[in-house]
């Protein structure tokens, strides 16, 4: 096979292209200002103060006001995290309430539309085992992406009442 002109010149054109390409080596990336538009990062209600997470908690906030104190926490567990009934009864136990059975569970929990059909809310009053004070607990359990998310607002009943709306509003963004 006899080489054509194009075949003879091809390697030379390649060489020339490479040498031009080498010129780009001097073009280091310059550090410059960048602008990004990103989805808004959720921020908690202003009355919540950032606190140190306790045990397996992922995040914790504390709220102090003239009418009492409360804490807000988020815990994420693998799978169903012990199941709805088990966790509802655990929370009830923290306030000294009798456990529910499977049959009465339905009446003890409510759905939360903003968090999807899987989300369940529990709102209970009792006496805290730890402080022996009147306490209210608003808890939300959501199963999502092979994980279960436990959101809990617990504290003085009057303060929990005042914070409940803000708590429920923040939950869809709090991940």
């Amino acid at each position: 096979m006899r080489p054509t002109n194009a075949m003879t010149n091809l390697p030379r054109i390649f060489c020339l292209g490479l040498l031009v390409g080498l010129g780009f080596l001097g073009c280091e990336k310059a550090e410059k200002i960048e602008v990004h538009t990103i989805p808004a990062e959720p921020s908690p209600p202003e009355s919540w103060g950032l606190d140190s997470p306790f045990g397996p908690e992922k995040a914790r906030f504390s709220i102090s006001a003239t009418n009492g104190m409360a804490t807000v926490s988020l815990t994420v567990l693998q799978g169903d995290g012990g199941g709805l009934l088990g966790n509802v009864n655990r929370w009830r136990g923290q306030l000294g309430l009798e456990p529910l059975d499977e049959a009465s569970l339905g009446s003890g929990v409510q759905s939360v539309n903003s968090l999807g059909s899987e989300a369940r809310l529990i709102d209970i009053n009792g006496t805290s085992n730890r402080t022996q004070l009147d306490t209210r607990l608003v808890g939300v359990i959501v199963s999502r992406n092979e994980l279960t998310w436990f959101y809990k607002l617990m504290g003085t009943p009057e303060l929990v009442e005042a914070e409940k709306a803000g708590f429920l509003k923040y939950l869809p963004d709090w991940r």
Partner: protein
Amino acid sequence: MMNALKTNPVYQFFTSLRLTVTLLSISLVIIFFGTLAQEPMGLNIAVERYFKSFFIDAHAAEAGWFMLLKLVQVEGTPLTPEKIINPGWPVFPGGYLVGSLLLINLVVAYYHRFEWSAKKAGIYMTHVGIVTLLVGQLFTDILQEESFVHMERGDRRNYTVSFDDNELALMLPAGGSNRVVSIPEIMLKDKTNIQHPDLAGLTVETEKYWRNARPMTVSQLIDLDRDEQQALRQAKVDQVFAVIQTRITALEERLQQSPHPENRKALTTLKGRAFQQRAEAVELRSLASLLGRVGEMEMEILGLGESDKQLIFNQKNLREMLVAARTFDDQRTVGELFKSAVKGNLPQGTLDEFNAQADHFVPTLRNYREGEMGAMIQAAEKFIIRIKQRAQKFHTGTTEGRLGDYFRFVQPLAPAFDQNDRNQPVAVLKISHKGEALGTWLASCTSEFQQSISVGDQKWKLILRPKRHYLGFHLTLVNLKWEKYRGTEIPKNFQSRVIVEGSSESRPVDISMNEPLREGGQTFYQYQMNQNQLGATVQTVLQVVKNPNWRTAYIGCLIVALGLIYQFLFHLIGFARKRKKAAA
């Protein structure tokens, strides 16, 4: 024309094989010293200054030379942090220069010697493949970005974080989104007057910048003084112990010459007591008691009289050491008193307020239990001089922002060079809007707290943090697995299960050590797993590589492989034909 080119000295120089050998030799030298220099300079700086530069500077070369001397056990002068950070004059060709020249040499020689022949086509193709790999690597070097993302179960991220770079982020909420203006740290370091159309009239000016520093509260500033006093006290205590040790050794030697079982037993007990006291936090009273006991043993074993000058508690320098250690104790006490005195008494946190409190401190102390605190007053006077100097040196002078309200001082730290350490920059920023000064803010990489800047109706957020590279999708970590070989602590498998949420679909993906996730032009490799104190695996770290040039390596390898296959088959067929012909 070709003949004219062939006689051109520059062309001859670049086609020369001597140049190839010389450049390869220089490469060996660069690699050798560049590898050595990684110990004092850290991996990133050494790679930057030896391999990713056209020339090696004098300071980088000094680091390599110092390590070579250390290797042959010759004492050299270690590099100062300033020299490690700041390059010197160029003294030797760097990786980029040698690499570029090698490539030019290879290409020009190829051009010069090329003659079309089917017999050599495979070899030519192989060379083209090698050149493609070489050039591809150089482009990768320039274009590739490496970052990481660390997540705990349930964490959802739409960004990765740079290993080394930091950014000053100014964020403005707009509807359901945030506009993030990312200013590279280098602009803060260079104290550039920063303006940008997206900053809507805001100007950021760096008043002070520290590459690595620690913001401090007033209490922490006083604690810094306490720690220094503690170190000085410890040095004095160590000196006293060294004397005690020497004297005990002398007594032991004497007892070896003239054995005395009872004294031997007492001396052994004393030695044990000295060891025990040294291991614990030493009270000066017990140290003095220990010294007294050593003196008694000396009187007993060496037969010294109470007036004997050799006697341990007659030594003036020892008494001075104890007095000095006592003085440092007083200084610490004064520091704690001053901490209580300033607590809640610095409403504005200015230096003037601090100095006024300091000036007021000694007279207040003097009035307290008058006449009974002579030594303490002296200690307080010295303390106040020191703490005022420190405050002057470390005070930030910020006027706005919650971070600056809390941390009024900044302690500069030595830059971190180790690959596993990260510098924590701190800056004092003067911010103005359309020429009107808004105040000065403290920004620090040590805090994730976002501060506010109010400009009319707009509320900007400000934070200095590790640089974020935003992704066009979200990652949520749902599970992680850390498997070990049975009966050992050796990792067998790290695996992270993530949900990739794009704009239209979401899907679960398992990322393990040899199965990265490729998404949005980036590759996510399983990098590290972290456990909590109870041994539960709680955090995964993924290394993220963005390399727009990643195909070049595959193309280069393919060309090399095709060239080799062609060459092999060409010769094989030729050989087979010859055999066939011979057989016929």
